[in-house]
């Protein structure tokens, strides 16, 4: 009797290895993805998941290993090959041309001829069909810049299907979506699965793995450390596998004892050059000794709020009082002034705002504080004082390697963030604004940073934390404010908050 050969997997990776200089990003990874399933690949930031998928999609070339598609070994030299083999990728940062329409973005690379007119007409018809089959409707003539984030993601998926993809790779798709939009996305994925499309989901969110996938691979430090059927596992099991040890997902903190109001925003508004209301009638009170968390999906005004509070952008209307000093549109503050008032700011994007990659760590450690004593005497920078300061910061905040003369870009994400946080907290500020404190930071550093924020709170600082990670807000905050479309749409106490309710508020659907 003949043994039945097992059905060929849609995708198989054998022994994939990839290094970038000294960084060994992917070590000997082998996995199978069965056709018509939703497979999750989960791991912390820097575990190698995105690199692995980029190799599959032809953006990177593996140093060693093989890629098999539908039972055949293939050469993946560029995305063109991947597309030819029916593999499509929806990236975390959308590959969309803002100034083009949906239709133009769809046909890019598959225009169907030298002249555009014919290709565009054919694409339009195809778009209608795809909308019908998969429930993905979108206006073909809309400019991408005018679409919402969820709609833009839909365009990305349509683009991939338009090219005839049978395997869809999604890289952190829910990073920019509300919980409701995420649910909608997963319903779409189920529809795709029903029509025989294979889906690979890269994420670090354990709840999504549990909700959406059939199988899951866990990656840690470039290797596959576990493979499970999703029904056989749970979030704690996966978390432990991701990190390699038992992880405390809850922070132990004493209740806050708050004191005087240190920062007060009244009817704060911000209108940009095109008349768009970025901030609308914002009212916030920050008291000494409490942590206020601002929850919301990226792009709802949180970044702008931080900029206004930190003095980087003047408000268009309303009033801001910081440690007794009142500021408004006609008397705008500036970051330097805010610092002298006792405000410190850990920016959302440490690489773009919080540090200078090319500077040594010691120079980064005085960013924003370089004028005047103790770092400047007699108009000259005091090199030794700066170096000593940096060494002290690194010691106290366990920044590794402990080298003040090392370029700032050479530190890992977690250590960079600790350095920035150290710089701001070491001034013993009265008000501390923190944006995305643990973005791109490994779990060990996350615990450290959270504890430091609580310590600052206990020492009497008024802390404002803006984060897109609901778990972080839930564990850190004494009070939770939710922002949507530039407004504060509700305030919730953490012990009475749940993800569903917060998610609805974040989507503007529940007026608390």
């Amino acid at each position, binding site marked *: 009797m003949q043994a039945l050969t097992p059905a060929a997997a849609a995708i198989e990776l054998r022994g994939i290895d990839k290094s*970038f*200089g000294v960084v060994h990003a992917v070590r000997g990874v082998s996995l199978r993805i069965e056709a018509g399933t939703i497979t999750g690949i989960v791991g912390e930031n820097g575990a190698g998941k995105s690199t692995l998928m980029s190799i599959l999609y032809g953006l990177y*070339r593996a140093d060693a290993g093989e890629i098999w598609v539908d039972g055949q070994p293939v050469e993946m030299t560029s995305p063109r090959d991947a597309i030819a083999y029916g593999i499509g990728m929806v990236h975390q940062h959308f590959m969309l041309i803002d100034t083009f329409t949906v239709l133009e973005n769809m046909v890019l690379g598959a225009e169907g001829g030298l002249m555009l007119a014919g290709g565009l007409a054919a694409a339009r018809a195809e778009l209608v069909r795809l909308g019908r089959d998969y429930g993905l409707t979108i206006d073909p003539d809309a400019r991408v810049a005018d679409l919402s984030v969820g709609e833009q993601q839909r365009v990305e998926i349509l683009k991939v299907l338009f090219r005839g993809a049978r395997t869809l790779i999604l890289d952190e798709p829910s990073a920019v979506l509300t919980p409701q939009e995420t649910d909608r996305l997963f319903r779409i994925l189920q529809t795709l699965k029903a029509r025989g499309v294979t889906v690979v989901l890269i994420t670090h969110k354990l709840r999504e793995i549990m909700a959406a996938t059939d199988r899951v691979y866990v990656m840690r430090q470039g290797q596959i450390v576990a493979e499970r059927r999703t029904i056989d596992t749970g979030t704690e099991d996966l978390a432990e596998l991701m990190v390699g040890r038992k992880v405390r997902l809850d922070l132990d903190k004493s209740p806050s004892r708050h004191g005087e109001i240190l920062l007060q925003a009244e009817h704060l508004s911000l209108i940009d050059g095109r008349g768009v209301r970025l901030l609308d009638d914002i009212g916030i009170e920050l008291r000494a000794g409490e942590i206020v968390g601002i929850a919301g999906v990226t792009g709802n005004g949180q970044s702008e709020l931080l900029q206004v509070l*930190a003095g*980087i952008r003047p408000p268009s209307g309303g009033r801001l009082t910081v440690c007794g000093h009142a500021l408004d549109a006609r008397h705008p503050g*500036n*970051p*330097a*002034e805010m*610092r002298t008032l006792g405000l410190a*700011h850990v*920016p959302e*994007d440490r690489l*773009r*705002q*919080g*540090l*200078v*990659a*090319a*500077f040594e760590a010691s*120079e980064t450690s*005085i*960013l*924003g504080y*370089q*004028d*005047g004593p103790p*770092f*400047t005497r007699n*108009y*000259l*920078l005091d*090199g030794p004082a700066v170096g000593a300061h940096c060494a002290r910061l690194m010691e106290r905040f366990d920044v590794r390697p402990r080298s003040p003369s090392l370029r700032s870009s050479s530190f890992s994400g977690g250590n960079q963030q600790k350095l920035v946080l150290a710089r701001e907290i070491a001034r013993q500020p009265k008000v501390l604004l923190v944006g995305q404190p643990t973005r791109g930071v490994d779990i060990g550093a996350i615990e450290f940073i959270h504890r430091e924020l609580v310590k600052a709170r206990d020492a009497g600082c008024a802390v404002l934390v803006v984060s897109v990670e609901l778990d972080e807000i839930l564990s850190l905050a004494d009070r939770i404010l939710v922002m949507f479309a530039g407004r504060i749409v509700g305030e919730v106490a953490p012990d009475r908050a749940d993800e569903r309710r917060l998610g609805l508020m974040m989507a503007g659907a529940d007026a608390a």
Partner: protein
Amino acid sequence: MRAPRRPLPTWAEIVLLPLVNIALAFLVVGVIVAIIGVDPFHALRLLVVGAIGSSESTGYTLYYATNFAFTGLAVAVAFHAGLFNIGGEGQAYIGGLGCGLAILALDGWLPGWLLIPLAIAASALFGAAWAAVPAWAQAWRGSHIVITTIMFNFVASALMVYLMVNVLIAPGSMTPQSRTFAPSGRIPAMHDALAAIGITVAPSALNLTIVLAVLCCVGVWVFLWHTPWGYALRTMGHNPEAAIYAGTNPRRMTMLAMCLSGALAGFVGVNELMGVHHRIVLDFPAGYGFAGIAVALMGRSHPLGIALAALLFGALQQGGTELAFEIPSITREMVVVIQGLVILFSGALAHLPRPWLQLLLARRAS
């Protein structure tokens, strides 16, 4: 498929790579020279001898180097702020106008020890002012500084021609130049200054302005790496958002950086007009402004590197002039070609030799 750019060891980055870049430039020059029908090695020998072969030629080399140092520093300061100042020609021209005007107005009234610093300050002021307009346009209007500084070079040229022909021309002169400066408005030549303390060197155009150049190199170094304003300037150059976060006003910093840059370029006028010609003449910037870009690139925008690069360019200029003298089919423009090639290989194609250097160094290490 390109390998990610791994940095070479520091010594290779700062010394070896720039040297290889220059060597490549010279290789191409050799080819061009050969095409014209001249023996490249003969030309090279003439070049070197012409540059440093005698006390007189060394003097000229240093005199040229002074100008290159000023424009190199000017471009470098702007580079550190993330700005591309191509207006060195115009700023040098107008800077010269500044010191010239100061001297023409006051050389009958003030003694040298008062007039000379005043005129130097005037050249800085005028050079800074000429850079300030494009700076303002960039900072407050977003107009690209590359285009505006280029435009201003042309405007400076037209302005100077107009002034020289119609306003400042010395009475009875056939060529557009001002009257001669009184002795109180002249910077002593080096051979005179040295003679006064008993050292004899052959006469050349080298004058005491070179002292100003050295002071500027030191001053720029202190400013950029040892003052809070230099720190803020460099921050803006690396990362404008971080500079804003740190409390720097990017518009004011742009103005500051460009004005400093223009002032430095303006000092070329001091060297040329107060040190050599002793009158205002046309076309004295003569390409120093553009060459300053090459000097800054080769010197990696660091004052020490710029000083060395300026010496090299000075040698090239002097050697090239001698070469053109000796060989009629090679014109003075060959120096311009060399400058252009150096900019190309040190600036745009700077990373070309990397893969080979990395291979070479890896092989030596193993």
